[in-house]
């Protein structure tokens, strides 16, 4: 069958549905059938699944002209989704095509939710089209004879690639692809991504650095222009609106008319605990919503989530309070309005959330921004501009993640084993490991086999063995079993299941939260008040309670930062406060009382000014700096400056950061004049100083956690079998100390520092902002009490960093153990 005839089949199907294929869909069909690889840039709900399922099926038809009567078995294509919750929906759209076109193709799902029975069946006979997650794909590579499974696979599609790209799951994906390329000769690689700043790079990372593969590829853009309206919810009385906070409950009543005026409203919160609180509070104040309102976040059990998703589609719900768990996939036609509570910290994310409303082509998307404190209104104003200019961020891919590579090599070693020569060639083609030297490669191999760089006496280290012909192989069943459990744990804290004493799974919760609870404590989770009974074998046993509580389950989650473009927009909005009224946005005008208050004791900086404030409270001496460059740059600049000051004389700091500035808090005052005289904002020796400051703070220590888990050094335990593994559990903190003391040149230990450097401190942006500060006039204000700008910073108790150049003994002299009086 020639290509034209194949298109006819597809077009006819579209006609039957009363649709017309978009240009991007037709372009994708063509490129795919020509054997090309590619990246499709298309938003959710645009028909992207049909853009790729169709050519996969058409290609099968082409190769099997008697497809209606005969079924050629075996895996034809893999569809990767980052969220297993989406797989059902993807399966349905695939089945629509395979059934309507009278093929006998089968569609299957393989994820953490797949039963053992189903897995075994799949192992015997793979479905033609397989929908799976990055982790489950790795697990397939951990099965014996995996090369036969993938031999005739014609395509792998990585959906929502923008979500995976900047994470270690992205690296996992790169590695799996590097293997599949070599065992499936017919393989086409396709990605689907929402709009991000570095689309070209996203394609390179997906396809790898092999010129042949890249040259035979396309980048297709859907170009669906959607009208997005952003509206800020501006508090009516600025005087009583708080200067700090992250909940936004002050504006709860403003949300009510919005919910009432739209079919379904999604309220996006930034954290799961915030989600819990909003859900509680709305119901408390407006019990009339009971039964018409629901909550959705990643830690609620699957059945409830699926129920909520279906209820949205069936128009049974007026409002849903949710987190990023509803960012992706799932077409929710009835959603007319979206409310973002608190800064979304990213234009791309904001746009994606906005896109959840007005899902039908031609409809406009409406998103409300609800600020949680006064200064966030500046962000609201900047966001509006950013949406207009479509300034979306980059997603930065990881480089040289030794932890993921070690995990991958162990995976290969437990299935069929591997020959280092062959695999080294493959991974050198990936974006992540393109610069990996032979020396480092040898280091990693030694580490796998000996757990160190040379054989040691009295050592029983056991993991990978080298067989006679040079094959690296795991022959120990225990090692293999533990590793399989470890593959899924590439991100996240130790999660514990929450269950009723009588049974009944409610959801999962991070260990750190539970560790703070005592028997009888009542906490809110999944919208219920639960009494903590005990922890037993990695599950938390609870019972329902009628007691009121202020303990709300919380999760650490990841911290996000403003991009360079967004920071610039933010500064411009701030500067506009000094301009005539007519040049100001409504948000900035509403903030007039706050700016006035700020000017009383300090200033609102102009473009030519850099503001430093100092004052004393009962907490100590506060020193505040306002570069307005986004959290990560402030983390870097705060550490750098703190480190340089600590060289002048012994001092200890507690550092706080947000998107507007940073604080150095100490028990002694810093002489700011001395800071300026010594030119401590200089970019000379910046890199060197920054590296040293990293050793002085704890940032790398926190990064090390993931590295230790992924590389298999910290065992997180078997799900529900936790107790047996207790003797193998240690904290990554402990491990960090041991490495620091005995093996500081270990590549995994080093990786924690490199990652902090590359992914958190944004050295390049730091340099630019130091250059900018060098051109500004520094205004030092000695204030009598906290200013509005300083408020969110000085009241931050949670996410503080420490830095000290004092001797421990000297520090301790000024301290005491605190005995809380009730």
């Amino acid at each position, binding site marked *: 069958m020639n290509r034209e005839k194949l298109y006819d089949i597809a077009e006819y199907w579209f006609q039957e549905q009363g649709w017309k294929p978009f240009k991007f869909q037709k372009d994708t069909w063509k490129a795919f059938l020509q054997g090309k690889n590619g990246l499709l840039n298309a938003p959710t709900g645009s028909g992207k699944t049909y853009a790729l399922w169709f050519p996969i099926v058409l290609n099968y038809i082409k190769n099997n002209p008697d497809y209606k009567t005969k079924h050629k078995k075996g895996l034809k294509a893999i569809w990767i989704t980052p969220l297993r919750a989406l797989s059902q929906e993807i399966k349905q759209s695939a089945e629509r095509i395979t059934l309507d076109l009278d093929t006998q193709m089968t569609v299957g799902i393989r994820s953490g939710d797949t039963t053992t029975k189903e897995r075994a069946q799949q192992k015997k006979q793979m479905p033609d089209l397989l929908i799976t997650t990055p982790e489950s794909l790795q697990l397939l590579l951990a099965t014996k004879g995996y090369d036969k499974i993938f031999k005739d696979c014609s395509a792998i599609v990585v959906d929502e690639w923008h979500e995976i790209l900047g994470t270690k799951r992205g690296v996992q994906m790169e590695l799996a692809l590097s293997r599949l390329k070599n065992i499936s000769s017919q393989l086409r690689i396709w990605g689907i991504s929402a709009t991000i700043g570095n689309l070209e790079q996203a394609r390179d990372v997906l396809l790898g650095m092999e010129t042949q593969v890249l040259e035979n590829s396309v980048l297709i853009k859907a170009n669906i222009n959607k009208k997005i309206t952003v509206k800020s919810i501006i508090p009516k009385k600025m005087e009583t609106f708080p200067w700090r906070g992250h909940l936004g409950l002050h504006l709860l009543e403003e949300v009510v008319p919005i919910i009432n005026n739209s079919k379904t409203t999604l309220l996006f919160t930034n954290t799961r605990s915030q989600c819990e609180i909003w859900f509680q509070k709305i119901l408390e104040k407006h019990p009339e919503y009971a039964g018409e309102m629901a909550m959705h976040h990643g830690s609620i059990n699957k059945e409830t989530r699926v129920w909520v998703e279906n209820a949205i589609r069936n128009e049974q719900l007026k409002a849903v309070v949710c987190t990023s768990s509803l960012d992706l996939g799932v077409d929710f036609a009835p959603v007319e309005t979206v409310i973002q509570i608190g800064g979304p910290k990213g234009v791309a994310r904001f746009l994606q959330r906005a896109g959840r409303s007005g899902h039908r082509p031609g409809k406009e998307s409406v998103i409300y921004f609800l600020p949680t404190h006064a200064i966030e209104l500046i962000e609201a104003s900047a966001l509006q501009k950013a949406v207009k200019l479509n300034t979306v961020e980059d997603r930065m891919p990881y480089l040289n993640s030794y932890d993921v590579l070690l995990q991958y090599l162990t995976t290969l070693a437990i299935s069929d084993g591997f020959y280092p020569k062959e695999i080294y060639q493959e991974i050198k083609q990936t974006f992540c490991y393109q610069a990996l030297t032979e020396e480092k490669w040898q280091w990693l191999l030694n580490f796998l086999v000996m757990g160190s760089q040379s054989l040691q006496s*009295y050592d029983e280290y056991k*993991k990978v063995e080298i067989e006679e012909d040079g094959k690296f192989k795991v022959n120990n069943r225990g090692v293999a079993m533990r590793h399989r459990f470890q593959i899924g744990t590439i991100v996240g804290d130790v999660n514990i299941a929450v269950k009723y004493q009588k049974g009944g799974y409610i959801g999962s919760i991070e260990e750190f939260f539970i560790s703070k609870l005592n028997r009888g404590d009542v906490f809110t989770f999944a919208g219920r008040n639960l009494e903590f009974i005990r922890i037993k074998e990695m599950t938390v046993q609870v019972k329902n309670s009628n007691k009121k509580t202020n303990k709300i389950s919380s999760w650490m989650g990841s911290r996000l930062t403003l991009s360079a473009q967004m920071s610039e927009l933010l500064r411009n909005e701030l500067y506009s406060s000094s301009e005539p009224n007519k040049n100001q946005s409504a948000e900035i005008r509403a903030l007039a009382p706050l700016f006035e208050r700020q000017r009383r004791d300090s200033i609102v900086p102009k473009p030519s000014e850099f503001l430093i404030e100092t004052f004393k409270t009962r907490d100590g001496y506060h020193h505040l700096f306002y570069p307005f460059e986004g959290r990560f740059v402030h983390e870097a600049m705060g550490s750098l400056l703190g480190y340089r000051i600590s060289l002048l004389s012994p001092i200890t700091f507690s550092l706080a950061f947000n998107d507007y500035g940073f604080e150095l808090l100490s028990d002694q005052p810093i002489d700011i004049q001395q800071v300026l005289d010594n030119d401590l904002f200089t970019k000379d020796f910046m890199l060197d100083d920054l590296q040293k400051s990293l050793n002085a703070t704890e940032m790398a220590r926190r990064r090390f956690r993931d590295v230790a888990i992924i590389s298999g050094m910290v065992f997180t335990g078997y799900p529900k079998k936790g107790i047996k593994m207790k003797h*193998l559990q240690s904290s990554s903190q*402990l491990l960090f100390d041991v490495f620091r003391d005995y093996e500081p040149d270990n590549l995994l230990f080093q990786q924690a520092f490199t990652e902090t450097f590359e992914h958190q401190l944004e050295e390049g942006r730091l340099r630019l902002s130091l250059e900018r500060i060098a051109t500004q006039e520094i205004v030092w204000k000695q204030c009598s009490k906290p200013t509005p700008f300083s408020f969110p910073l000085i009241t931050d108790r949670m996410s503080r960093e420490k830095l000290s150049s004092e001797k*421990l003994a000297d*520090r301790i002299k000024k301290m005491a153990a605190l005995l809380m009086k009730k």
Partner: protein
Amino acid sequence: MTHSITLRNQIFEMHFSGSLFWVEKSMLLISDVHLGKVSHFRKYGAAVPQQAVQQNFEALTSVVNHFKPESIVFLGDLFHSSLNTEWALFTEWVKTISAEITLVSGNHDIISPIKYEALAIKVIPELIIDSFLLTHHPEERDGIFNFSGHIHPAIKLSGLGRQSVRLPCFYKTEHQMIVPAFGEFTGTHTLEPCDGCEIYALLGDAVLPVPIKEVKKKRNYRK
């Protein structure tokens, strides 16, 4: 380097390593060494630096040389898990020690007492000397003062400027003292101070009594 306290007319010296020396009896108390933990992890494929193994034995030797005790009592969790190659290192170490060694057994001590007896080490569930009770788990008994381990106690110190430090410590209440974990790579559990307790923190090269300050819950800042 050490800090002495008197309990029921007996003098006890707390050492910065976390060990406790009973002067009158010339007895050294050491808790939670967790020997073999590093090797155990390595055996199961977690590449903890092997050099950490030596540190435990060096620290043991150095504290024994310091006090030159007539007897040594381990307050449980001497070995982390089942037998591994560190047992051989331990055997070597025991040969260098002239003091009488006793193990008050802890929850981790699953190695057969026969192995210990072969090294002339007594393994017992608890030890009562005068009105002092030595156990692994903290216990309360009438008229008795209890020394124990198990908890790996640490204390959080706070100061002006939102400063805080966590340090392993000796944790003493009226009739009880919990001894810190001696071993490398063992971790700590932070305890809250309580009414009437005394806390002695380990500073790396010294033992320091910790001042305890009563505080009320802080109010937030006002605008």
